[in-house]
């Protein structure tokens, strides 16, 4: 009975449960209780999210409203395969981040500030879930602000131990301000043009009232620009790169993973509203090219930056920009195959990023810092972990029998089928850059002498949670990709307004 009720109200719970847990954590005394609340919340949210994703293939209700009224007094949440995929990806990062936060963030804050740090972490996750589910621009605005301000505040909290975190927090706050301005202005313009802040209603206006279309499109374009920062798409990812470099591990993981996934899917939802549903609108091809351009720039710049990065955290952020960029590029090509390939790519990229975050946790907690040189001789010190890291790197490259390969294959096949040759070249180029990066890191892991010898001990083992999820998922969905492919196809059908496959 309770489980059924939870399933029925899952969309609301994704937002309200972390917020309630945040309040509870904030009230907890300094010590482990706040972390326990976070860990329990993380595990519960992860379970709920994967159940939600599984039920996506069995058909979901049309929508869910918090507050019974659409924005600005209530929140219209979209419940379909797209939000199921987005929620699953957010939970894939949020679950391990919360479950391991008590260990991996140890020492990052003053003890007295730990409860508020946990509360901010939970608030950030609530914002990410809300972003993944939002069906109207006001909810989107709120979600974006909740996650962005929480990220900035968490980074700033780490400033008491790491002075370089404060400038990074400042940049994050400025980015949050800019995105708030862009989304609110965009929502206002879209509301004036379409008479609604709901994305689907705006899409309808684009199709039926061409005179208002330009204004509505401008509004949506401003929202997309703001979301690009959250999705850490290059070149809007400067704030995120700085914050990821300085924030405690769980917060960095949420920025680079959960936040990026939620932001990316919010962009995709807006694009799908503007381009395929508004097929009569003459600006639809331009909208598709806009998304393709965003993907092109992000994939190209992200790949180049990743190939040159020597700091593992920054490298992770750049890899994310490149991988999400590829996904955007293939999504823009349109058609069920390409869109499904794009959605699959987001899942494969997430698995790779989860594994990379595990690698960073292991190296950092081993006292080697976040520099690439920390990987030297890792294969001799911790061979099992090193095998996991190697699998993850192969997934990022797109090596066979990993989820990354299936993603690359589907993307290339779809792009070539639609004769987007230039996009296929960009994806191949990003793969090449990832191959160079992986070869470089593998050389450090397996062929160099370790800085100092020592086994994996204590809290470093918590990094295994990430690594097992990333490497295990990469292998599992590489050998048996059907469940993910089905979810991706369902999401593609929902995005294109087609009946479920």
């Amino acid at each position, binding site marked *: 009975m309770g489980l059924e009720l939870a399933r029925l109200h899952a969309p609301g719970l994704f937002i309200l449960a972390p917020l309630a847990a945040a309040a509870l954590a904030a009230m907890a005394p300094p010590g482990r209780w706040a972390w326990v609340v976070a860990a329990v919340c993380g595990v519960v949210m992860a379970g709920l999210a994967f159940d939600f994703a599984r039920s996506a293939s069995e058909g979901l209700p049309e929508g869910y409203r918090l507050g019974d009224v659409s924005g600005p007094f209530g929140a219209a949440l979209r419940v379909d395969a797209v939000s199921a995929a987005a929620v699953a990806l957010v939970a894939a990062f949020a679950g391990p981040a919360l479950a391991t936060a008590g260990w991996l963030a140890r020492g990052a804050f003053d003890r007295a500030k730990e409860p508020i740090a946990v509360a901010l972490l939970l608030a950030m996750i609530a914002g990410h879930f809300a972003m993944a589910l939002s069906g109207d621009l006001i909810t989107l605005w709120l979600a974006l602000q909740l996650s962005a301000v929480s990220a900035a505040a968490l980074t700033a909290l780490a400033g008491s131990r790491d002075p370089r975190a404060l400038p990074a927090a400042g940049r994050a706050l400025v980015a949050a301000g800019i995105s708030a301005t862009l989304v609110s202005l965009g929502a206002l313009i879209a509301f004036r043009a379409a008479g609604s802040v709901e994305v689907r209603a705006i899409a309808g206006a684009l199709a039926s009232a061409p005179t208002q279309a330009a204004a509505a499109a401008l509004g949506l374009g401003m929202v997309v620009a703001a979301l690009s920062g959250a999705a850490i798409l290059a070149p809007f990812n400067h704030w995120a790169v700085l914050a990821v470099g300085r924030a405690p591990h769980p917060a960095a993981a949420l920025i680079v993973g959960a936040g990026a996934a939620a932001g990316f899917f919010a962009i995709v939802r807006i694009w799908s509203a503007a381009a395929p549903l508004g097929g009569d609108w003459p600006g639809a091809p331009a909208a598709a090219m806009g998304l393709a351009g965003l993907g092109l720039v992000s994939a190209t710049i992200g790949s180049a930056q990743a190939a040159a990065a020597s700091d593992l955290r920054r490298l992770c952020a750049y890899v994310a920009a490149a991988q999400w960029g590829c996904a955007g590029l293939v999504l823009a090509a349109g058609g069920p195959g390409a869109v499904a390939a794009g959605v699959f790519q987001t899942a494969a990229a997430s698995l790779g990023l989860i594994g990379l975050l595990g690698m960073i946790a292991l190296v950092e907690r081993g006292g080697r810092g976040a520099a690439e040189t920390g990987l030297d001789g890792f294969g001799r010190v911790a061979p099992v972990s090193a095998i996991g890291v190697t699998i993850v790197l192969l997934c990022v490259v797109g090596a066979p029998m990993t989820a990354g390969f299936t993603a690359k*294959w589907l993307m290339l096949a779809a792009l070539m089928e639609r004769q987007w040759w230039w996009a296929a070249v960009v994806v191949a180029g990003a793969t090449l850059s990832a191959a160079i990066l992986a070869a470089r890191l593998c050389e450090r892991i397996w062929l160099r002498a370790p800085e100092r010898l020592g086994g994996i001990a204590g809290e470093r083992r918590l990094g295994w949670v990430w690594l097992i999820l990333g490497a295990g998922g990469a292998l599992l969905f590489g050998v048996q990709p*059907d469940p993910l492919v089905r979810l991706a196809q369902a999401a593609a059908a929902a995005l294109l307004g087609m009946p479920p496959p």
Partner: protein
Amino acid sequence: MINASLFLALLYGAGLQAAIAVLLTPFPRLRGTLIGLSAAALALIGLAALSRWDSLIGLSETRFRPLPGAAIVFTADPFGLVMAALIAQLALAGTLYAGAYAHRAPTPTPAHAPLAMALATMGAIMVALSANLLTMFVAYVILALAAGALAGTGVRGGGAQALTLTTMLLTTFAFLMPAVAWTYAIAGDVGFTGIGLSAATLLPLQSDALLALFVLGLAMAALFPAHRWLTDAAAAGGPYAGPLAAGVVVAAGGAALVKVCAFVFGPVLAQARVLADPLALLALAQSVAFAVIALGKDQLGARLGYLGAAQMGLVVAGLLTGVQAATFGAIVLLIGYLFAGATALMAVTTIALATGRTKASQMSGLGRRMPFTFAALLIAALGLAGAPPLGGAWARVWLAAGAGEAGAGWAAIAIGANSILSFAALAPLCLRALWGPSAGPGTFRPDIGSPLLIAPMMVCAIATMALFVFVDPLGRVLAGALEGLS
């Protein structure tokens, strides 16, 4: 039942070798013995499979389904079976030689080398027995990673490993993967027997672009500019230079290119002439230019590396003609090169181990103290030159006939030039070593003439000669596989 077991044993035998290499790492002596025995068993299985090839044809093994509509499938087709059996023989020679070398080498061979060798063998056999492009690609990536690891075992020049790994990964992911995905997008199928590439399904120049992607993606075939890994691996020396630069790795590269040209393109190759002709021309130019470069190299490993790349140039050129005779000639040349090249590289490595001499100018008179090694090197030299009565002679005849059939009779000049230059690069050296004046005492180690070092080399040399006799049976086995070509 026996046939199916033979096929599966051939397919997975090298995997057992890899498992032994991993599990018995703490017991090096036992590991070496068991790896040698399993390599011998695999070679015997290969011979048994070859002797019953007509009963095995059509057997298949389906594994995972990593993509919607495409699975990992292996099948016993005539060409694949021949190549898999030959790879098993080359792997045995390489494994035994490396084991014997490790006992006598002044520096220990890296612990991961036997595992890399086993994985390379497994990858190469999987490439040969792959039933579709997806399977071939998966096997090719395994082989590329193993080749990168093997390249690190060279005794000279640490750069060979990075170069090999980088070349393999870059070409595989930048060219081969898009080529395979593109084929799938065009034909909706990746199976070698079911690919619907035809004039009707391809746009103008599409077949050319696709062919170029495949040729550039298969770096193991060592076509310029992706040849450096081969020349550097040969120059670096060490016990695994043979398997790398003239053994299982090159065999897999050649086999993959044969499958692409003969089975994926087949008759469609005739409409891809806009790029196929320049690529064939490039390969022919490589066969002559690299043989000239080889002549100028005093370091024996580098000389053999360039000679090998020159041979592979002829192989690639033959395959790109799309003519049955030239394709058959290219296959025979490839097989001949595998044995002759492996023999030569093992001989050169043995000479370096015994005397510390690595340069052609230092070989004079050495043959009288190492008669078996230099006899093997002389046979290899004749094999590379295509002198009768060795298999390379038939290969060149078929290649020239095929070139004439394709309207490029002038290519026979390049084929002849390659023969003369290959002969000039090695034969005089062997003659000087056997009958020339001694170059001084040096640091000769008389105990180095171990039968285990000599035997693999001599067996490969005998195989080089035996190919002359076996060309006819080989032609009968492959006749069905190549009948789609003009």
